[in-house]
């Protein structure tokens, strides 16, 4: 076997960035090639950001950047300089689930859960922009995310349930809650 004892690294250029993540200011030094997803997961320890494909199809890595859903695997950390990033970790307040999270739980909209952060963040963008979405709007809003386990029906129902709840006028049958 050929082991190499010399440790150290090649000269890797870096850039300084500052941004807000879940309401907190963060400054960091990153390589220009460092993906935002890796930066959030590894450097910021926000492991709720998942990577399923790293080429922009599955949406597991979806976070909000200045309120817009972006695929953090297709975004470089340097591109997030000066922005406000929201991840799934920022949603629950004082241990209480955000209405979207709550709705996902109640509708059994997750099985393995690997897609869930991405779906929750995509749903947040959707409902922030359109609190009362039509069936088509939900479909369009979630079409960039893949779930391999649930078959989507429950995710769709969860988004509508969350929409009802966030609207303040719940039309959801309360009895259904577990």
């Amino acid at each position: 076997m050929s082991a190499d004892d010399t440790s150290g690294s090649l000269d890797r250029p870096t850039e300084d960035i500052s941004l807000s993540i879940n309401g907190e200011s963060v400054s960091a030094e990153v390589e220009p090639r460092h993906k935002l997803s890796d930066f959030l997961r590894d450097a910021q320890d926000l492991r709720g950001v998942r990577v399923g494909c790293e080429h922009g199809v599955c949406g597991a890595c979806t976070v909000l950047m200045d309120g817009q859903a972006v695929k953090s695997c297709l975004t470089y950390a340097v591109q997030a300089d000066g922005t406000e990033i929201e991840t799934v970790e920022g949603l629950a307040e004082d241990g209480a689930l955000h209405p979207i999270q709550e709705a996902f739980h109640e509708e059994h909209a997750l099985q393995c859960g690997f897609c869930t952060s991405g779906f929750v963040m995509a749903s947040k963008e959707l409902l922030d922009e359109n609190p009362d979405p039509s069936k088509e709007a939900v479909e369009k809003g979630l079409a960039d995310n893949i779930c391999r386990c649930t078959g989507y029906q429950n995710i769709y129902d969860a988004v509508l349930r969350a929409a009802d709840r966030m609207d303040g006028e719940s039309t959801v049958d309360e009895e259904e809650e577990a």
Partner: protein
Amino acid sequence: MSSHARTDAAEEGETETKKERFTGSGMARVEDHRILTGEAEYIHDKAPEDSLHMALLRSVHPHADIVDIDTSEAEDHPGCHLVLTAEDIKAEYNPMPAGLEGFEEWSLADGRARYVGEPVVAVIADDRYVAEDVVDLVNVKYDQLDCVVDPREAREDEVVVHEEFGTNVGDHEELVFGDPDSAFEEADHVIEKSYSWGRISGVPLETAGVVAQYDDDTDSFDIDCNIQLHTLVDDTVYETLGYDPDDVNLDVPPDVGGSFGTKIAIHRYCCLAAMASKELNKPVTFVEDRIENLQGGDMHSTEREYDVKVALDDDGTIRALDFWFVDDFGAWPRYPVNQVLKPLSVLTNAFDVQDARYEYDLVLTNKTCQTAYRGFGVPSHLYALEMLVDDAAEALGIDPDELRRRNLIEAHQMPYQLPSKNIYDSGDFPAALAHVQQRIEEERDGGLLDPETVEQKREEGKYRGVRPTVHIEPGVSGSDWTDRQRSDREGLEERNREDVAELPEHLRAEIRPDGTVKAYLATDTSGQGHQTLVSQLLADELGVLPSDIEVGYLDSETAPTEYGTAASRMAVMLSGAAQGLGKELVSNLERLAAETWDCDEDDVTYRDGAVVRVDGGGEETLSLAELAAQDDESGLTRASYDYEHPTTQLEQFDEALSKKLPVYPTAAFAANAPIVEVDTKTGEVDILKFYSLRDCGTQLNPTIVEGQAHGGLAQGIGAALQEEFGYDESGQPQAITLFDYKLPSIEHIPELELEHTETPSPFTATGAKGTGEGGMIDGPASLACSINAALEPLGVRADQIPFTPNRIRERIRQVEGEE
């Protein structure tokens, strides 16, 4: 719809017992909170501070001699810690266990690469970015060889994938049941057809991952990974490393991002990371990326070419069936995958036929190796059979619905023994079929299938159709038969019941000092809600709340080498185990209380989370917390239980078991009727509505049951219409990103009209039948039949899965050209 059902179930339970029963209710999952808040720790999240990272250099050629590997430049990179080649690992380790005798596969390609994506070199570096830089510095010189891609062609042996094995036909078997030859001779008609089933797979959203850590002091390994069946397939890791099972501890996190069978074959990664960790004396992490996963992650599944025959009489009675197929295993027969035999457990699906022949060639080609996938070889079998029935109906001029109805197994025939010796436990297939037929009738009256609408759509080139079908989901795997191919075939004849391995499921629990219960699963899980199920079931057994029960996991070293999650097994096995464990714990606690009170055991009884003294003397009780405090050395607040595999308790299965024929003690079933619309201009299939009546015996948690059905059907829809690992003629894989391997999105999944009946299994402790594979098993066959119905006027058949738009257009042009 489903949520109302679960409210009802909970209420019923209450009135019945005056107390809430959790089993049977749609209790929301205990797993969810940590996942929803981003706190769940999947394998990708584990990264010890000082961990190094592995990346793999993979073959770009489907078949090539490896002439030279120059690693010098890579080793000079300052971030590189280690470079491994086959030569390095052969000096110290063993080949990986193979699925058939006569193959020697090393964790890195040894002298020859046999498929695109096969790992050739492993590098370990500071982080994954650097590791990939280093991979780019490794120089491999290849001498390209001709390759073989087509499985039928592979049988000719013009290009042989493994010279030392001598042929591409890794295995062949012909199984004859009853007297099919006479039936084929005597029957009025024989219909013969060919169908093909493309390469698909589970493609879980989370790829494989490993963190391996070698411990110098104890000369042992701790390996965190997301392998499936970690207590069963751990031999693939410890045997390769050449260590005792006790020295290789596989630990799977409580949250795994999907597997669907596929992750049983990720041992190569575990071994390589472990070898590197030993060499460097540091933890080594590997996270497979999606491109690696799709092209060379050893996770493609069944690919089959079928030639099938059916013998029928004029009145439509099916006399005999004959299946021949070639199954493309890819470059290596992957341990422990063998999906060609499981269809024997549903040989005739829901039809009453006693004469059949089943023959296959298992071939090797220059493609990625096969792993298990939801349904384990059954979906393609049911597809071929149902297509054949459609074609037979057309040939005989009989209505296909009528042909099916005439041949279905009747309720009074249950339990029903198949010619292949497996037994269906219970069910009423004709009633299920009649039910969905009724739903379809309603659609003809002003609904989606209103004749006027259908006609009008047809004028626009859109063909609507539906064809109800019934399918069996064989449940509760036992692994004893899966190494049939590696057993001496003649020896099988001598084998008897005593030689059959038992396949129990293990569960254990202890009462903690605060009176709560900690239970441990000996299996891993990937989203099926096992923790929730066990907490529901044990709560009922112990008369406590599910929230009083925490469910954890055992690693491979601690857990007995039992079975685990496979083939819709856990509902049955865990519920049986939880019931047994609960009873054991209750009797332990009664004994402990009797000892404490110094009275007779008959004088105490367990009730609602406490032991009560019932021999007069007032209302004395001992709570679980008090009992825990009493438990010094006796160990009576701990218990473990092994629930025996149901078949091992039932003589009826002896013949199948001793001959190593696949046995599945439960027959969950579904009657499906997807209404499809095929756009003949674009070739797109739109599923307008999917009616499905499903029965998995007793539903332990209807919410989870419904979730499994939705998820399974989504995968079945993907398989039928859009997913495929295609290869071009030169052996290059065509689907190496998720742009090419097309997973269904929310836009592809139709409205599902699911209904459930409950026919409890007489063979299992709780009546549950298991339901994990259903939709994937029955979705493709039922969609193909509905497409046949829609395209009947054009004479087009869904003879190739997936039936993609281009294939549909091609077939339509073909028949138009013939006219």
